[in-house]
């Protein structure tokens, strides 16, 4: 397929070079922040909210909203890439590193299943969520995360397609092996690296 040319297509929307080099293959620039959700938006109050790390761990850990607020927060400037082809560049979240949360629970497994209010799940190798590459975010552009975008708290793994950054996060389960989550069971790639264009099962 490498030599197919679309008759009459010139690519007049070509982004400037500094933007183009930050766009993974098949992505285009989006200025807004579109919402994609497979069902109704869950309303998750911070009263009674907990984040649990369990599964193959040395000890199960759980934080209330107040306890979570006392953890060390970091600013996370990043580019995000949605598998539906849009990318948003230079956006900023604030959250707690998964390094902090996982270290407290002493993980013994190889993978993670993120579990969410509303029933959504997604799977990630531990290697993708450690070493300063994943956070539980509670703010976006200086504001509390809105319910549309996963508030009060979502997973943030900006180097993978954004369906991995699970909204309305409730817990992280450490697993001994990889196990498909919601979209991974419905046709999408197990890992989802946008730079390798790992969108679907057979990519």
């Amino acid at each position: 397929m490498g030599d197919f040319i679309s008759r009459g297509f010139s690519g007049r929307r070509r982004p400037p070079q500094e933007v183009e080099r930050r766009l993974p293959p098949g992505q285009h620039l989006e200025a807004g922040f579109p919402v994609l959700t497979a069902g109704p938006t869950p309303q998750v109050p911070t009263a009674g909210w907990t984040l649990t790390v369990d599964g193959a761990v040395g000890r199960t850990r759980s934080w209330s909203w107040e306890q979570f607020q006392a953890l060390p927060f970091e600013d996370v400037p990043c580019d995000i890439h949605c598998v539906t082809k849009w990318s948003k560049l230079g956006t900023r979240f604030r959250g707690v590193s998964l390094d902090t949360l996982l270290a407290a629970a002493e993980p013994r497994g190889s993978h993670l299943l993120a579990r969410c209010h509303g029933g959504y799940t997604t799977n990630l190798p531990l290697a993708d969520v450690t070493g300063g590459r994943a956070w539980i975010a509670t703010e976006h552009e200086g504001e509390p995360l809105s319910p549309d975008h996963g508030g009060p708290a979502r997973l943030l793994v900006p180097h993978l397609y954004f369906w991995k950054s699970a909204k309305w996060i409730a817990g992280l389960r450490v697993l001994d092996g990889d196990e498909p989550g919601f979209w991974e069971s419905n046709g999408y790639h197990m890992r989802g690296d946008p730079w390798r264009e790992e969108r679907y099962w057979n990519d």
Partner: protein
Amino acid sequence: MERLTPAPRPGRWQIGTVTRIVQETPRVKSFRIALPEWTPHLPGQHYDVRLTAPDGYRAQRSYSVASSPLDEGAIELTVDRLDDGEVSGYLHDVLVVGDRIELRGPFAAFFVWRGETPALLLGGGSGVVPLMAMLRHKRRALPDAEMRLLYSVRSPEEAIYRDELGAETLLTYSRAAPPGWRGATGRLDAALLAAAAIDPARGTVFACGSHGFAEHAARLALDAGFAPERIRTERFGPTG
């Protein structure tokens, strides 16, 4: 039933040929595309379309399939022309019958109809496209299945598939109705959901449209008594 539940086997990139173009509304066209490596899709699935310029620059977008998987060898994509749409603008302004186009699919296996009945389809604007695939397939594969479509458009110029909506459909004009219209007007609401008469205890809801529409429709379905796990939504991000 087997034709309702084909195993999703997403294909590779392939070159299809445009065999028919229908102007559905002033800004919506349907493209019938013959595929050399056709795979039966599930109603609700999408294809990715990829455009390549002579210097290698590429643009990709996803479009829902509008046709039934009983149309062997071809798919129909219905495309809304976005004001600044790089790909939708090309499809509308450049593509003609006989042209070749690169695409692959079918993809995604959640917002799909596998024969669940009863089914309540809630469509806003061009969100009706994957729902029309479901309705068309129901008519051919399971004509007696209980399926209703509630379709909300702002004005007559936005009503896609108008001659094909049929007895299963309740259409509402949210801003401007055509002269002499005696049907529903205004936003989708609880009364229209009730008029569709799909039992919330047994039914499955498919809501598709803008984020605002999908959120509103899902909320109405929740209020009507459908459990959250029986409400599937698909929201149009900006595609272009």
